[in-house]
């Protein structure tokens, strides 16, 4: 059933001074055809590293990738075949296109790589068809342009078209709209969603924006410093966040329906909570135990041990001591009564 399976992915970088930075720690997920899995996290959470590892653009320290049930090819023809099936859309529309080449070049190359026999007019037509599918018209005019002649949104559409050129089964979208103007983000996300449905693609949508993560995916994973702290159905996780980090993320988002007074009250509550805390610690070496504990309002002594993954609802899991065993039950009652 799953098209792409990533199991126990770990990516660690050696740093100067010997300390190792684990950007991704024992992460597993699977992508199903026609469905989107959202990966939510902030900068430094390791989400971009996950994309690059899944696309085999960097070598993980450990872990397995399976495509259509078979181990992913790692070199030569097998690797190239993997690349055709698993495509990436990058975050920066200005950097993901080569300023020296035309749009046609960008699209023709992957088309030719997929089917070597495509040449001349047939190739041109294939390029125009691709541009048509991402609503860049008239395709003949757009194909002749260079990236600097297009707007950010148009470039990102070209990037999407390029990703589709090899007729992939999997799309890994790394923050595809966060560098675009706000008013065109939804248009691009709608386009991606429609293409996914039309072509029955399996999609990974990486973002820091909870709202679009909820609307454009059915499943969601929340990452913090290389670890998935919560996962489950999108509506569940967003509307009933279990992990304290997800709760903070959800509460930090602007609430257009709140009144001025309730906003001022919330602000005062946050300020008192912040004054009570000892302050943010910048850490690169906190490998043991729960990585969130230095910022967690519910931190307990047991958090120095790596927390278990606990089921908090149907298909909904959180990596947190609050929900595990006796201490979990008590803490759960407490946190339901109080507020963040």
């Amino acid at each position: 059933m799953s098209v792409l399976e990533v199991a126990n992915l770990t990516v660690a970088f050696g740093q100067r001074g010997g300390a190792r930075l684990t950007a991704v720690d024992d992460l597993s997920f699977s992508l199903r055809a026609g469905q989107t899995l959202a990966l939510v996290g902030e900068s430094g959470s390791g989400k971009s590293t996950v994309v690059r590892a899944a696309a085999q653009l960097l070598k993980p320290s450990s872990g397995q990738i399976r495509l259509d049930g078979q181990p992913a090819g790692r070199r030569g023809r097998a690797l190239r075949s993997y690349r055709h099936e698993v495509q990436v859309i990058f975050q920066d529309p200005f950097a993901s296109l080569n300023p020296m080449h035309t749009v046609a070049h960008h699209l023709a190359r992957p088309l030719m790589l997929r089917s070597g026999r495509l040449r001349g007019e047939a190739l041109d037509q294939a390029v125009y068809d691709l541009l048509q599918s991402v609503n860049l018209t008239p395709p003949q005019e757009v194909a002749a342009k260079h990236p600097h002649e297009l707007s950010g949104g148009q470039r990102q559409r070209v990037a999407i078209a390029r990703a589709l050129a090899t007729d992939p089964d999997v799309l890994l979208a790394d923050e595809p709209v966060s560098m675009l103007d706000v008013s065109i983000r939804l248009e691009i996300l709608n386009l991606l969603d429609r293409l996914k449905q039309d072509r029955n693609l399996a999609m990974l949508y990486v973002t820091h924006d909870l709202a679009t993560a909820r609307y454009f995916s059915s499943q969601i994973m929340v990452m913090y410093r290389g670890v998935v702290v919560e996962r489950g159905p999108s509506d569940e996780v967003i509307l009933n966040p279990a992990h304290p980090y997800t709760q903070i993320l959800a509460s930090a988002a602007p609430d257009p329906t709140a009144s001025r007074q309730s906003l001022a009250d919330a602000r005062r509550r946050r300020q008192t909570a912040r004054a009570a805390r000892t302050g943010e610690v910048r850490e690169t070496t906190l490998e043991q135990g729960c990585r969130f504990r230095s910022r967690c309002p519910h931190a307990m002594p047991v958090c120095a041990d790596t927390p278990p993954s606990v089921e908090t609802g149907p298909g909904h899991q959180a990596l947190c001591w609050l929900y595990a065993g006796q201490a979990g039950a008590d803490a759960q009652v407490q946190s339901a009564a109080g507020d963040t």
Partner: protein
Amino acid sequence: MSDERDLVLRAEHICVEYAARRPTRAVRDVTLELRRGEVLGIAGESGCGKSTLAYALTRMLKPPARQTDGAITFFPAGGTAVNVLDLAGEALREFRWNKIAMVFQSAMNALNPVTSLDKQFDDIFEAHRPQLDKTARRQRAAELLDMVGIDPARSHGFAHELSGGMRQRVMIAMALALDPEIVIMDEPTTALDVVVQREILDEIERLREELGFSVIFITHDLSLLLEVSDRLLVMYAGEVVEHAPADLVGSAPAHPYTFGLLRSFPDMRGARRELRGVPGNPPDLRHAFQGCPFEPRCEFRFEPCATTPPTLLPAAGRPGSAGRTVSAGRADGDWRVACHLHDAALRPAGPPAVLSGAPAMLSGGAQDEVTVGTDSAGGDA
């Protein structure tokens, strides 16, 4: 125009152009007023001219950008009005940072990476408060850092040793170093994570309550502005298209662009509904527009839009517009929009329902419940 006793800054008919073979008119005839102690938000996307406007107000425009028209007047507390464009030399230096300071978008670009933080504070004091001796300067720097929630012991360190949020707080501390009357913030939290952003905003609000400066807050994040500002301007293609009180515009936008922009921020907790932004692309500012610059992307356009440029009019059906009195307790009922839909002469029936000021038109309701973002066969679990 408002009573001058309330104002701290007034900019009229500002025009800024980037010289080139085909000049780009980045700011086109913008007029704004900043009241003492208020937060004025400026919302808009890339290319709308908001940052250029901020640089014009602080006289920091560099070639090829030049201001080609307009007047800027500063009204200091307890002093006489100052024509900002006439300032030169010593007077200009005194104006900058003493009276008006700026917090830039990317702290890593604005902070000097090779000098320590206290040296950078020193620079400010040396330039503007030469009478302070070294100990006094260090003490003031420590006070400022403490004020923004940074351990003063870190002042000997360097910018790269701090996290993004802390760097931005240092920027804020530097902006407040000389106790200015106006602080302009250009996307101060955009590069930061949403949690840190929330902290920084809280910090700014607390400082504002404590020190009483006025703020011009520039960002593309309209939903944020709705929370933090008192009034806001929406800019498009170098012009002001809507000027409204922040607490009301969120539920009742007057301009189609504001409407589209609001719609681009889906409510995370809301019911699933069709998600749409604004179709099309930002305009090319090298062109002179025949009619309304937003017309190609506007879903409510009608005949006059392509041929006649709109001017700022009172928004139809709002408190403070023609024929209605300003209700007590509201800081400003002045609500203006540059859109022919609100021109009773061109459209006697008034603007379409969603723009007419009746709340609850924005969230779902009349729109069809076509859900997007659900996945095809297989569902989940």
